[in-house]
């Protein structure tokens, strides 16, 4: 689509409407929930040490929705696993509300890409798992669990087992379960990656609705451009080898968001910017052309 490409270059993703600019100003006045200082991770592999991430520095503000995007293998999962305390940094530190965060802790909730509901527990029991581990129980907890299940729209399924749920429903329960612990920040590693396109769109709008309703900060990993721009306040773009911050983009699309904005100029401009960062134009155009010999008779051209 050459005409669109021409227009895109004229658009500036940094241009913010007064309302949007005001939103970002207010966001940055809020306290920092999560800060990352000089974070570095080196793995020992068979071919010697591999630096997955190097020199990461950024802050996430309270109630911010931050997306992290980058090519496969650039260290997104490594980053979020360090934030969750599942992996230890080689260098640097993670601060939660200014205090060093070491090891896994219920104040940093996590939703994984793989389905991680406990198959032997019902939906409600899954949601109550965290508080139960903290020694809570009783009718009060059950009521609370029901509220969370209600919030993700699964009241009818509170006594179902995970195998009775679709993929999207499982991830909604996983979100409710993480939120039931009332974490300071919700970490999500490509939570909708295994879902089909339609369910995915639905889940994105569910997530935005939940995020609007409760006091929660979200750090969300994705490799999907539309998803990142649609959800995020700011997008942290990672560069590979070693993984480091390329740019932190403030998304100029106003809130509340809906799918129709996907064709708005701000949306397209932002998406275009992220795209050029992730897929920089190659110097040698031949590189991307596959050399496949022609295996079909002449005369049935498809292009």
């Amino acid at each position, binding site marked *: 689509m050459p005409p669109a490409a021409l227009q895109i270059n004229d658009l500036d993703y940094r241009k913010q409407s007064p309302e949007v600019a005001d939103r970002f100003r207010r966001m940055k006045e809020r306290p920092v929930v999560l800060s990352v200082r000089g974070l570095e991770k080196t793995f020992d592999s068979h071919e010697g040490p591999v630096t997955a991430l190097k020199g990461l520095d950024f802050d996430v503000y309270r109630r911010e929705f931050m997306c992290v995007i980058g090519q496969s293998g650039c260290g997104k999962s490594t980053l979020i696993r360090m934030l*969750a*305390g*599942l992996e230890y940094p080689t260098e640097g530190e993670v601060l939660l509300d200014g205090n060093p965060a070491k090891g*896994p*802790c*219920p104040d*940093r*909730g*996590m939703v*994984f890409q*793989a*389905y*991680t*509901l*406990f*198959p*032997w527990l019902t939906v409600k029991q899954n949601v109550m*798992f*965290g508080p139960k*581990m*903290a020694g809570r129980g009783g009718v009060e907890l059950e009521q609370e669990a029901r509220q969370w299940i209600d919030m993700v729209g699964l009241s009818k399924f509170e006594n179902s*087992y*995970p*195998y009775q749920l679709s993929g999207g429903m499982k991830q909604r329960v996983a979100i409710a*379960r*993480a939120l039931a*612990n009332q974490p300071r920040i919700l*970490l999500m590693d490509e939570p909708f990656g295994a879902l089909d396109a339609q369910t995915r769109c639905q889940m994105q709008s569910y997530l935005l609705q939940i995020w609007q309703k409760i006091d929660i900060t979200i750090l969300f990993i994705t490799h999907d451009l539309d998803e990142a721009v649609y959800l995020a306040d700011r997008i942290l773009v990672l560069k590979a080898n070693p993984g480091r911050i390329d740019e932190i983009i403030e998304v100029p699309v106003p809130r509340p968001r809906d799918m129709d904005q996907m064709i708005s100029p701000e949306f397209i401009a932002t998406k275009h910017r992220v795209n050029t960062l992730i897929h920089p134009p190659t110097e040698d155009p031949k590189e991307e052309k596959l050399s496949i010999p022609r295996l079909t008779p002449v005369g049935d051209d498809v292009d």
Partner: protein
Amino acid sequence: MSRPFQLRGSLSPGWKIGLAAGAWVLFFAIWHSLAVSGWANPRLLPSPLAVCRALAELFAEHGFAKDVLKSLNRVLLSFLIATAVALPLGILMGSFSVAENFINPLVSPFRYLPAPSFVPLLLMWLGTGENQKIALLFLGVIWFLITLLMDNTKAVRIELIETAQTLGAKPAQILRSVIFRSALPQYLDTLRQMLAVSWTYLVIAEIVAATDGIGAMMMRAKRFVRVDDIMAGILVIGVLGFVLDLLLRGLRWWAFPYLRTGKET
């Protein structure tokens, strides 16, 4: 819909039961015709009916029920002890590499030592009494049991453990509420399979210096060339093993409703 002749086709319950029954009918029919055809000496190959008659006689006139209970007791008691030892070890070894790397070098080679080769030792150490038999049955399953239960423990998905960690569970809680609970159906499967192995050692334990039990009865019968009694003994062992297997399968079905779908999440 049944697709009996398709690659990996599915079968309706009717087909399954029919096929299983057909296999047994065929088995008994061949056995019966071999026995009555005069092809084999009827003393060495009694017909199925003769075996059933011998079995009824054993129960009615020779107090066979006591032998059966004795054998059952030996298998279950030894297996209980073996489980009580192997389960904690398996869980520990599957959860902590320190435990695995310390215990496995011992357990692993022991699997290759045939338990019956310990019989002379056990006879000297423990005499000819009950302890010797329990010990043999114990030795027959313990090493495999430890290894298999460890593997079951290790097969618990790491994501489930990590999820529990991020939800605030402490290691002891994870061990109990996630690792043990998640692997429980697989533990039960392992126990069910090893229980079958335990029955194979029963006969070995009872043909050496035993006065009671199914195996002892069969050794007595051998002296009088009572092939029908021997076959009756084999039949009873088979039926007992099969019934225990069914019971454990039933327990699995009843205790883990979330696995009834066939597909595991």
